[in-house]
């Protein structure tokens, strides 16, 4: 469902080419589905009437948006606006999926596959998904994986943080249960579930979904959720058995191991639902939440497509953080 917002009504910028102000930006970034209303003090009865009309209209639109299939998969006004600006800036040269963000000067910047990213200046990323004619109005799923690395040991480095944006439609109790069940998910447990088909309660009943797309439907899809080469392999049975009798290996080298081989890595795996809509491409917003104390990130986005027959399409970014 297309949602056209009157200018400035939802906390998004009034003019399409201008970057949003910081306060509006924060509100929009944190809750893309929960529209924030900017209510100013009324200066007269006419202004008050206009404000009331705007509020009523926005509430009606909000009701329509939520009733028409949920706000998670539906394209938000923010994404639509970003996509429009992206098309204008690229002048139709958008043939491949790509990752973008809006710089402080308002221009849209494509994230290089290997580069530097400002930790505190990039609050929101947008993944541009090229849709085919057959995919129009079909649901799609992205799996977004982050492997954050640091020279020092990172808190909860042996756990995977999982999140599915469908949890946002859960009740508080359901959300608390999902988060509690997934709090102690180990890296090896996550990998074994996807690569060796072992059992895991959190992944099976909370993280993965059956609808609108079954994320475990095919072995190909299941395996696409694994981190694979993104994280160093854990010791196997022989190494574990040897560690009981043989000398124990050092957990982490104290001074500056190479980031790619260093064990301290914090990993996150997210599922993001979207709908291809009726446009040629779709901009899917991603709020990355870069943790403190990390030096770099290996980001991989898997586009699982919209049909069982499609193989997931994967793209990688190796980014170093600057302040």
């Amino acid at each position, binding site marked *: 469902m297309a949602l056209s917002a009157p200018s400035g009504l939802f906390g998004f910028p009034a003019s399409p080419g201008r970057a949003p102000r910081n306060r509006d930006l924060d509100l929009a970034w944190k809750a893309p589905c929960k529209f924030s209303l900017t209510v100013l003090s009324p200066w007269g009865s006419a202004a008050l009437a206009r404000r009331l009309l705007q509020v009523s209209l926005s509430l009606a639109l909000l009701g329509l948006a939520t009733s028409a299939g949920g706000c998670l998969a539906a394209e938000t006004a923010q994404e639509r606006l970003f996509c429009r600006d992206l098309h204008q800036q690229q002048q139709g040269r958008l043939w491949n999926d790509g990752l973008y963000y809006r710089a402080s000067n308002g221009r849209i910047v494509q994230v290089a596959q290997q580069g530097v990213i400002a930790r505190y200046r990039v609050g929101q990323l947008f993944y541009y998904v090229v849709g085919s004619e057959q995919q129009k109005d079909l649901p799609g799923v992205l799996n977004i994986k982050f492997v954050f690395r640091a020279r020092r040991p990172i808190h909860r480095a*042996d756990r995977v943080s999982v999140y599915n944006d469908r949890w946002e439609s859960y009740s508080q109790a359901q959300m608390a*249960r999902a988060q509690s069940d997934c709090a102690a998910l*180990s890296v090896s447990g996550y990998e074994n579930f996807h690569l060796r*088909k*072992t*059992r*895991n*309660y959190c992944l*099976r*009943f909370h993280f993965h979904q059956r609808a609108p797309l079954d994320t475990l439907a095919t072995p190909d899809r299941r395996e696409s959720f694994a981190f694979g080469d993104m994280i160093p392999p854990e010791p196997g049975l022989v190494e574990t058995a040897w560690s009981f009798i043989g000398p124990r290996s050092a957990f982490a080298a104290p001074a500056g191991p190479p980031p790619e081989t260093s064990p301290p890595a914090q990993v996150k795996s997210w599922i993001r639902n979207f709908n291809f809509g009726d446009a040629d491409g779709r901009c899917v917003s991603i709020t990355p939440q870069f943790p403190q104390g990390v030096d770099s990130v290996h980001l991989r986005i898997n586009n699982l497509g919209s049909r069982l027959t499609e193989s997931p399409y994967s793209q990688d970014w190796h980014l170093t953080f600057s302040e």
Partner: protein
Amino acid sequence: MMVQKKLRTALLKLQAYAALYFSVLYRTVIQFWLIPNPPTGANVLTGGFAFLLLYSARMQLSLPVDSASMYTILFASFFIILIICGVLVVFDPRLRKPGAPLQVSAMAKLVSVICVGIILGCALVVLDTVFPWIDPLFGLANALGLSASSATFFAAGVAALFAFIVILTNSIIRAGGVRAFFSDLRNDVWSGIILIMLIIGVDLLLK
């Protein structure tokens, strides 16, 4: 010729040891005081099997199998089991002779029964790779609104129960029938204790 003879002797010794070991292992029953003494080094072999199956069972339930986790779990679980088994044997009046030293061999046999039961429980969890029985169980746990740790406890409990049924069946056959086995109150009491010990043990190891 000499080497061949030595190799043949070594293989025969190995075969004899394996036969003795497995004959004792197959005689694992609830009435642990009737189990013959295991051959030397049998506990090391049982420990090896236990480690292998525990590792595979933990992997099957997507639990951490790194050396740090395994250290903690093995140490804590077996320490608790050893202590509980040791304490329990003292309370059996037939095993506690007045003035006699502590029945260490009876304790060792009880620990052996518990360990074999845990191995069986872990083997049943590993069997899920061939016959998927855990997924429906998790589905039921989810329908009941259980948490992840409760669901794992549920699966571990069911595995322990199956392991207990195997040992109980063996005990009944060796006792000469259901009536013969359950006619002795001592067997009934130890059956209950071993079932509880198995549930606790398998759950601790698959936590």
